[in-house]
């Protein structure tokens, strides 16, 4: 029985079987075809086992440190060439888990660490679920993010386990829940500390309590008019975030649940919510491509063994303060330097707000707060492993800072600037060792923007650049290596698009109409709202820098000039292209019918052109990295797979 490559079964003295998932050659468990086929064979044998061989109960658990099960093997999924193959793969999992659910003895999933997608679907097929209450324990059905559906029984079993509203929320957003939340939702029967996890599994299977049932009210959400009403509500919510033309998967999830009780194979192949339609859609391909791009960026961090413990940030403005707070949130000791307590205080206030939003446990909140240390004297620079300068864009000031840092910092510390417009080489020119300086370019708002550009100056040392990538991964962001050139990659692609949008406004098109055109194309935010968010002064500065310092003033859009002159710099000053009463945008509703034909193409065109030029100039290594930068740095419509991919598919 123990002749499997990816699974191991142990039988204990009480007749309980312990089924360990231990994927060969990997640190994380994922369901490859082979792993799934093996599981199916195990299940078939156990189902008919008799006498001594018949388990009194079965515990499914992971043999890895790195979590329970991370879901399907996406890399394998990416190699599939036809929708038919993909349907077959889904069917195999669906059948296996149905057979698992029908086993004639109680089963229990012991969940410690990540439990995603197929992992949670297997857990849902168990009689009982126990989650280990650790920070790493996360449960989710994130299939929707890849443009697919939880087709291994998730759509069928999750609503019956936790009620329709919570289940749809999880499936439509891909949201993760921790062990305590899972217990509250009824997703797991128990959330237990690590020290009693084995006992909890053993005792549950020997006591065999009545399996979890939905409460009366939750049960009602699955029936009749309530079911329809809830589906409609969820559909409306989804429409606000993603349009069906671009993102069919969430709509398919709703249809499959509402009309087929979660069976993804019931719709005829030509139905828009059928598995075949979905798997054949370019969106699904492209979202899986985006997933692949993200994995590639993550892999950039694996080249170095650098491990930061202490980060020193100079400049407590929006960027510096938020970078510091983010690093503390990720568990690093951070010293934040600025000239006075009055300059540091607002950053400390913003950090407190971020910690409160992200950390529910008051002890973890306190830990993060304790890690962020205001530092007027700049004492932290002597101890830090990474020093990030994020002061205002002034060459002289930055030169002075790095000259002082060179004398003060540890010789092995990373010295980085967050500049967006001054060439690294220029800042480094007065340093004794200019090869020490690198760029770490974060985006605003730091807590939300995943991408960090790692800017290589002409002389920057390669080992430091590799260490930067590792550091960026350490703080859970996505590193993108770029060459030092005006605007690097992201601003270079973004600025022409924003300028074009502003020119449209100069021509008399209402801002909300311009934004609507971009939203209809699939951008997550309209360009004018984005400009307001970035800050109009910064838009002008970036625009000028890209145009070259001798560009005529006239190149700046008129409306933009007027707003700047009036001190309306966007969201931060309460008004820009829109107004922000109480910090929230007030935006007139845009009638899609009023959007002029071709407006979206006009807005996108300069962006596409800039992407092509950036590639030609070698700002990043290849077209995929252009796409990765555009997607994670500018939010370029995910469903397209990125600007270069979009261009290629348009010409194809």
């Amino acid at each position, binding site marked *: 029985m123990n002749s499997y490559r990816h699974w191991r079964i142990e039988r204990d003295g009480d007749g309980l079987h312990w089924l360990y998932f231990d994927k060969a050659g990997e640190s994380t468990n994922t369901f490859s075809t082979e792993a799934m086929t093996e599981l199916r064979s195990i299940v078939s044998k156990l189902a008919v086992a008799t006498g001594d061989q018949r388990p009194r109960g079965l515990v499914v658990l992971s043999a890895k440190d790195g979590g329970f099960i991370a879901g399907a093997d996406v890399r394998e999924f990416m190699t599939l060439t036809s929708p038919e193959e993909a349907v077959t793969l889904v069917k195999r999992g669906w059948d296996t888990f149905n057979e698992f659910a029908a086993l004639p003895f109680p089963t229990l999933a012991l969940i410690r660490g990540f439990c995603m997608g197929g992992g949670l679907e297997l857990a849902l097929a168990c009689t009982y679920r126990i989650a280990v209450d650790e920070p790493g324990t996360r449960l989710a059905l994130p299939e929707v993010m890849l443009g697919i559906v939880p087709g291994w029984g998730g759509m069928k079993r999750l609503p019956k386990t936790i009620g329709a509203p919570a289940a749809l929320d999880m499936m439509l957003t891909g949201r993760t829940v921790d062990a305590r939340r899972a217990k509250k939702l009824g997703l797991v029967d128990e959330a237990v500390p690590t020290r009693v996890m084995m006992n909890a599994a053993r005792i549950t299977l020997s006591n065999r309590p009545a399996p979890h049932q939905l409460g009366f009210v939750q049960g009602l959400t699955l029936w009749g008019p309530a079911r329809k009403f809830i589906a409609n509500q969820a559909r409306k919510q989804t429409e606000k975030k993603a349009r069906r033309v671009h993102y069919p998967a969430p709509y398919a999830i709703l249809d499959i649940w509402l009309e087929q009780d979660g069976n993804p194979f019931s719709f005829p192949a030509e139905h828009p919510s059928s598995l075949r339609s979905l798997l054949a859609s370019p969106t699904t391909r492209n979202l899986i491509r985006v997933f692949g791009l993200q994995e590639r960026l993550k892999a950039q961090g694996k080249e170095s063994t650098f491990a930061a413990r202490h980060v020193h940030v100079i400049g407590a403005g929006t960027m510096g303060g938020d970078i510091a707070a983010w690093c503390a949130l990720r568990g690093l000791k951070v010293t934040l330097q600025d000239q006075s307590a009055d300059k540091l*205080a607002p950053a400390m206030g*913003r950090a*407190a707000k971020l910690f409160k939003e992200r950390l529910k446990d008051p002890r973890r909140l306190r830990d993060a707060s304790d890690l962020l240390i*205001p530092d007027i004297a700049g*004492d932290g620079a002597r101890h830090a492993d990474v020093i990030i300068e994020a002061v205002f864009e002034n060459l002289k000031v930055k030169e002075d800072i790095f000259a002082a840092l060179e004398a003060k910092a540890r010789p092995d510390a990373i010295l980085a600037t967050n500049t967006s417009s001054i060439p690294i080489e220029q800042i480094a020119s007065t340093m004794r060792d200019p090869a020490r300086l690198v760029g770490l370019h974060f985006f605003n708002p730091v807590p939300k923007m995943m991408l960090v550009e790692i800017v290589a100056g002409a002389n920057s040392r390669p080992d430091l650049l590799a260490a930067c990538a590792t550091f960026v991964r350490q703080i859970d962001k996505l590193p993108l290596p770029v060459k030092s050139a005006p605007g690097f990659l992201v601003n270079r692609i973004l600025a022409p698009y924003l300028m074009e949008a502003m020119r449209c406004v100069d021509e008399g098109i209402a801002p909300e109409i311009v934004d609507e055109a971009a939203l209809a194309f699939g951008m997550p935010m309209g360009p004018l709202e984005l400009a307001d968010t970035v800050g109009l002064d910064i838009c002008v500065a970036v625009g000028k820098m890209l145009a070259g310092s001798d560009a005529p003033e006239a190149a700046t859009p008129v409306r933009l000039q007027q707003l700047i002159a009036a001190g309306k710099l966007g969201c931060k000053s309460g008004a820009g292209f829109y107004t922000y009463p109480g910090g929230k945008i007030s935006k007139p509703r845009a009638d899609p019918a009023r959007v002029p034909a071709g407006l979206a193409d006009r807005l996108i065109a300069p962006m596409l052109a800039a992407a092509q030029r950036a590639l030609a100039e070698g700002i990043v290594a290849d077209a995929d990295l252009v796409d990765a930068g555009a997607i994670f740095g500018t939010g370029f419509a995910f469903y397209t797979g990125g600007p270069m991919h979009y261009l290629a598919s348009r010409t194809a």
Partner: protein
Amino acid sequence: MNGQPVYVVDGARTPFLKARNQPGPFAASDLAVAAGRALLLRQNFAPDQLDEVILGCASPSPDEVNIGRVVALRLGCGLKVPGWTVMRNCASGMQAIDSALVNIREGRAQLVLAGGVDALSRAPLLYNEKMVLWFARFATAKSIGAKAAALLSLNPAQVLSPIIGIMRGLTDPVVGLMMGQTAENLAFRFEITRQEMDAFSVRSHQRVAAAQDAGNYTGEVVPLYDTKGEAFLADDGVRRDSSIENLAKLKPFFDRKFGNITAGNSSQITDGGAWLILASEQAVDKFGLPVLGRIVDTEWAGLDPAQMGLGPVHASTPLLQRNGLALNDLDAWEINEAFAAQVIACVRAWNDPAYCKEQLGLDAPLGELDQSKLNLDGGAIALGHPVGASGARIVLHLLNVLKRTGGKRGIASICIGGGQGGAMLVERP
């Protein structure tokens, strides 16, 4: 004294924040962490190179009873650096320094972070005994009927009259006097007038204001930041408009009708924390530490709790004698200003032949303490008296005063509720 020399390397404290009739923005451990991490950041060594952390605190909250260990961990000293808490009421911070000193002299420790803290604005409200008994009855009531009966027996007045923890803390449990009443005793004994007390208080405010303006607290006081994005830069209890006329308007607080001690000539109820880093010779060499001064000797004394304000006289006198010093041989004195009357009483007691003979067994009085050397930058009447922190504050500030004025030796002394006094003799290198 015996054993190794013990050096003070550096020190820092929070601004002292006056309690304003509601819990202040920082818990005691928050204050200690804020001052401690700023202090540790400017050192040549890492927090985990400390040998121990000792924190004096008179009223740690129930969730941080061993606040010394809580703070050590929060400061990033790591799991292996022990942390403990000492409590000697108003001298808890001085006791922490003395405990560090003993351990360094004994060779048990080389590098110690020691200090004191209290967040008096967060002193708890307590249930009175009747309420405690009621809770016990309610918890053991088995039936719904019994629970209902217990609920009905509850007297709303009883629920709405909690014991104010701070009033309990500031009342002597043995003689049953409030601290202010012990100061009234001293005023009576040494014939200190209301006018004299108020004048002393005005001087304290003026000296703190002048010291703030001259930057005498720079480096000693490190800013606090709250979660709302506000910075606290300086001690906020000082009143630059303080005058004898203003103070004369205040009503006596402790002996309400006929007393002399008012809120204006008493120390303020305040939140704050103060730290010093103490090091052995070996640690000074190993880490290349600067030396702010040396703790030469300590003395603790006991006296009648009803006269507790004379504690500094009882502790400092033997300290002076043991070290062959006269009152004015010292270049600076810090006597914690619990009450104006209490500091004035100390000065008078030393100059009073009868008191010196009867209470200290001296043939002749010690004489008149030169007040130009006493509390040069003001004291707790203007700064506030976060009980656990004050003892550490005056030792640190004394060293900073000596450094600034080029003085050599000084004594910091503090009166202690319950009838004790503490005194520490320090010396600049």
